[in-house]
Each structure stands twice: as C-alpha cells, then as structure tokens.
C-alpha cells in the first residue's frame, strides 16, 4: 500500500502479474498424473520449468540408448515448461502419445488454475479496494465532520464574543442614558438652586453696605463717648449723621434680609437633601425602600421639569416595603415621570397612583398626552425606540425602566388613560416577610 501525491492511501496492485508454472500448478495436482503415467508404462516422466529445472517427478538416469522425448506446456500461450521422458522406444509410439496427453492435461490444468487465480485475485483486489475506498471515504467524512465541528465551535465563540460586545455596548448606552438623564436633572436643579442663590448673594451685598453704615455710626458714638461729653451739639451731630446713614430705615430691613437669606439657604439645603435622597448617594447596595417616598423624592428633584400650569395628582396608598436598590427605582420613576411631563406642553395632568392590587404592588403614571397607538406598544421598551423628535432623547429611558422592573421580578406595561393619554403601569411582586421599616 502506498500513498499518492495527494496523500491518499491506495493499494497498488496490478492484475495479471506474471506467473510461473510452479505458481500455477501444485504438487498435489501433478503427482497423481505422473504416478498414473508411471503405472501406464511411462516411468521416469517428469516436469521441468523453462530453464530446465525439474519441478515434479524424477529425472532418472541418462541410461545409454535412451532418447529424450519432450512436450512443451504453455501458459497463456507462452512456453512455461516441459514434460520430459527418457525412453528406449522409437518416436511416434504410444509413449509419445501418452506424453502429449500429459502435457495437454497439465496445460489445461494450468490454464484453469490461472483463470481461477486471476478471478480470485481480482475479486480480492476489488473487495480490498472497496474496503480501502470505504476507509478513505470514512476518513474524509470524519475530517470534514471535524472541520464542521471546529467551525461550529468557533462560530459559537464568535457569537459569544459578539453577544458580549453587544452587552457591553448596551451597558455603555444605558450608562450614557443615565448620565444624560442625570445631566438633564442637574440642569433643572442648578436652575432651582440659582434662584435662592441669586437673592442670597444680593442680600449679602446689601447687608455688607448696611454693616459698614452700622460700623460708621458706632464709630461716631465711640469717639463722642471717648471725648467724655454728650453735649447738645454732639447729640445733634450724631442724630444728623444717623439720619444721613438712614440707620432707622435700614435696621428693620436688615432683619428682613437676614430672614430671607436664611430662607434661601434653607431652600438650597432642601434641594441638596432631595437630590441626595433621590440619588441615594450615601447608600450602598440593597435596602428596604418605601416606593411612595421614592416617588416623592423623584418628584421633588424634578420641579424644574414640570411644565408650568401642570397638575400633578398624587393618589398614594401605602405599599409594602421592598428590598431593592432604591436609586434604581428613582431612576425608573424619573424616566417615567419625565416621559409624562413631556406628553404635552399645556394643560398637562399627570396622575400618580400607588397601591396593592391582586397581591402585587401597582404603580401607575398616567398622562393626558397623545397616548401610544397599540401597534407601537410592543416596541416602546426596545432600545433606541423613541417617538420624540430626534435629539430629544436617545430612546433608552423606557428600556432602562423595563430593565429595572424586570430585574426585580416585575412587569411594566402601557395602557390607555381613560379620556386619552398613556398610562404606564408597573407591577412588582410583594416580598413576603419583608415588612421592616424603612431606615
């Protein structure tokens, strides 16, 4: 068996290899013939190959007066050997005839044997080759199967990689969305802080002026006292100066200014507190949360985003405390409320209802905007889906809300508000044995 230039193994075997008489005839076949010949009166008859080597029978002695009679035995029509007899009888007799008969018998036997050998050989060759080819086919099949398996495996890896990439991209987008909504929130809060800050600053400037006048006035009193006199002229001078500085007018005003300023700083403090509460910046991980309070917190930081003249209806019923990351819920409420606040510019009414329904916490956020047509409802929670004009939102707000709700085992759906508008309904499972107080 050898391999060809493509590395395929194959049997190299050629049908019809040359054969000698010895290979084609066997002792067992020839011996009976020769012994029968001996019995018939042909002693010393033997068979030799093409080179004269004795194959079967005994050559006997080359006795005097004896001649050699020989007949050629052909194989495939080619001389392959001889049947030889040493005899004393003259040629042309019975002995020669018998000799021819033996030669013919051997040739016929050889011919038939060769035919049988060729047939067997071919048969074996075909069987072997078919087997070889089967092995080869099998080898190729397993090779290609192996290749496909590798392909499939690398495909799986690629899919996994792409999935991870997508997941990372998604996380980045969600992160960006959060940053964007925080940015929007920050802008609103900044505006809200700016107001009190502006009049606090202006008040402090005025108070600074007032203070210098008070100090000026005090200085005068001091000097007069140091000179030891409170003469009439001194008292007049002091009174005139006091009038010039309008001390009597500014003294009560200073009190007002200080009260207002303290109010202003208090407002800023509250805003910061709301913001802290909303962001849960001091909390790490999960904790018990009162969702009503979280909604309030969210609303309190969004005052700037509420369109002027909008009506906010709060119909809060107590809801069981749930363990969660409250910051996430504030994020979700922010997204839902922002959606609602953008539903229409004038005459907006947003109704927030909380409570327990059918063993679940139910929170609904209804607006009286244009609503969401039924054919779009299935898609609004998909990433990048937005009905807002380009640039107003990335379309991730509802996706983020959806992710937060589902990760807490809840559902979020959109319904029609009776009379028009969209109502987002969040349903959350009630956590058994988790009714501890909110910290």
């Amino acid at each position, binding site marked *: 068996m050898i391999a060809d230039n493509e590395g395929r193994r194959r049997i190299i075997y050629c049908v*019809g290899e040359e054969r000698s008489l010895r290979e084609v005839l066997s002792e067992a076949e020839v011996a009976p013939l020769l012994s029968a010949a001996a019995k018939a009166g042909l002693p010393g008859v033997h068979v030799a190959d093409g080179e004269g080597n004795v194959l079967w029978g005994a050559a006997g002695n080359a006795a005097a007066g004896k001649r050699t009679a020989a007949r050629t035995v052909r194989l495939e029509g080619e001389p392959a050997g001889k049947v030889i007899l040493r005899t004393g009888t003259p040629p042309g007799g019975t002995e020669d005839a018998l000799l021819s008969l033996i030669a013919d018998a051997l040739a016929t036997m050889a011919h038939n044997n060769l035919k049988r050998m*060729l*047939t067997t050989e*071919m048969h074996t*060759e*075909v069987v072997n*080759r078919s087997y070889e080819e089967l092995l080869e086919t099998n080898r190729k099949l397993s090779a290609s199967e192996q290749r496909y398996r590798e392909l499939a495996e690398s495909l799986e890896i690629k899919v996994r990689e792409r999935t991870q990439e997508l997941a990372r991209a998604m996380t980045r987008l969600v992160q960006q969305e959060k940053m964007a909504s925080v940015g929007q929130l920050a802008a609103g809060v900044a505006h809200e802080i700016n107001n009190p800050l502006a009049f606090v600053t202006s008040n402090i400037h005025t108070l600074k002026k007032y203070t210098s006048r008070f100090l000026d006035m005090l200085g005068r009193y001091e000097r007069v006292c140091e000179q030891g006199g409170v003469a009439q002229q001194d008292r007049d001078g002091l009174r005139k100066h006091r009038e010039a500085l309008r001390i009597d007018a500014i003294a009560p005003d200073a009190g007002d200014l200080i009260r207002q300023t303290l109010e202003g700083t208090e407002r800023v403090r509250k805003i910061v507190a709301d913001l802290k509460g909303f962001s849960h910046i001091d909390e790490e991980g999960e904790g018990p949360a009162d969702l009503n309070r979280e909604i309030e917190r969210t609303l309190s930081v969004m005052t700037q985003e509420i369109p002027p003249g909008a009506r906010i209806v709060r119909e809060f019923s107590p809801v069981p405390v749930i363990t969660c990351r409250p910051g996430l819920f504030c994020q979700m409420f922010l997204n839902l409320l922002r959606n609602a606040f953008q539903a229409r510019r004038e005459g907006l009414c947003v109704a927030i209802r909380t409570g327990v329904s059918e063993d679940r916490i139910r929170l609904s956020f209804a607006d009286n905007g244009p609503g969401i047509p039924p054919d779009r409802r299935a898609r609004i929670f998909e990433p990048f889906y937005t009905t807002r004009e380009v640039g107003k939102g990335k379309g991730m707000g509802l996706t983020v809300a959806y992710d937060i709700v589902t990760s807490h085992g809840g559902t979020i759906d959109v319904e029609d508000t009776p009379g028009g508008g969209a109502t987002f309904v969040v349903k959350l499972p009630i956590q058994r044995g988790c009714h501890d107080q909110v910290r």
Partner: protein
Amino acid sequence: MIEYDDAEKRMVLKLVYYGPALSGKTTNLLRLHDLLVKEGRGDLMVLDTQDDRTIFFDLLPFFLVAPSGLKIKVKVYTVPGQVQHDATRKAVLQRADGVAFIADSRRTEAKNNAESFGNLERNLAIVGIDIDRLPLVIQYNKRDLNDITAEEEIRKVWGPTGIPMVPASALQGWGVVETFRTLVSRAYDNLDRKHAFRDTHGLTRESFVDRLASRAG
C-alpha cells in the same frame, strides 16, 4: 508496464480496452484472436461472465522477441463496462501502457459514451496515469447499424483532441485490427522514448506493429 526485467531481458506491457457496457470490447478481442496470425499470439482468456457481460476481464496475450533478444509480452485486457464494476475497471487500468476506448456508435448511446469517457479520465487520475501522455485510440464500433452518429459529427468532436478515431464493426470484423495497430503504434512511441526500442533493441515501429498485429492468411 507490468514488468521490466533487465537481467532476464523481459518486458510485460498492458493495453486496455475501455468503454461503456455492451459497446463491443469483448467482441473486439474475440475478433483480434481470430484475425491475427497465430504466431506470437497467446490464448484468449475470458474470465467468468454473467449473461455474456464481462464481470472481471478478458485477456489476450501477444509475444515478440526484439532483435536485441528482449522478450516482449503484450497483454490486452478488456474492462467490464457496466457502471457497478468500477473497482474492477480501476484495477485493470492500473499501470496501463495504452487504452483503446470502444464507443458505441448508436445515437442512443452518446450519453453512455460520454459518461464512460469521463469515468476513464477519473480513474486514470486515480491510478496515477497522465491522460495526456497515455497512448489513446477511440473506436466507434457498430458502424454496421442504422441509427448511428455520423462520422463527420464524431470527427468534429474528437478531431480537436488529437486522439485518433477509428470507425469499426467488430461484428463484421472491420476496423478492429486497424484500431489495435493504431494503439500499438502509439504505444511504441512512448516505449521507444523510455527504452530506446529502436536504438538499443533494434526494434522499429513497423516491425513492432507487424509482429504484434499481422492478419492471418
């Protein structure tokens, strides 16, 4: 070539009759056996057949001795034409020194001829024989029949290949010897190139062809 024994000065060559089933390969060999001189030709060996269809092969050997003393034996084989005996065809084709492709001239057989020739090309490649260097002859057999493809048409197809085409009727006995002589003559070119038949062994193309394929009588 099956064997070349330099010491014994002996060479065994192989020629193969290939073609679709029932195109007349066996009949060609039978005719050659009858038509060529007895001297130098061996016995025709027809291995087992099934309803006259070859299942193994047929074999007709020829002998000649070159002036140099080189003994040359040429074994002519037929393959079984039936599609299912492809493994046997491959085994017979192994180490062939020349191929006669026996096509069936009947129009209905055109597709079978083409398929069988494609099979020959494939099998030659498998057993490692370069078809462009292999002495090849095409015989269009059964020219005695009616509904046959016109010779003109055949020449148009095979002409460009440079492969000689011989029309024949193996049944009537014509074209058969010519096919064989053409094949032997082409094989001579290859052998002369490899073994210097003329220069070393004093064997010319004419004497090679004549000794192997002379008509009896």
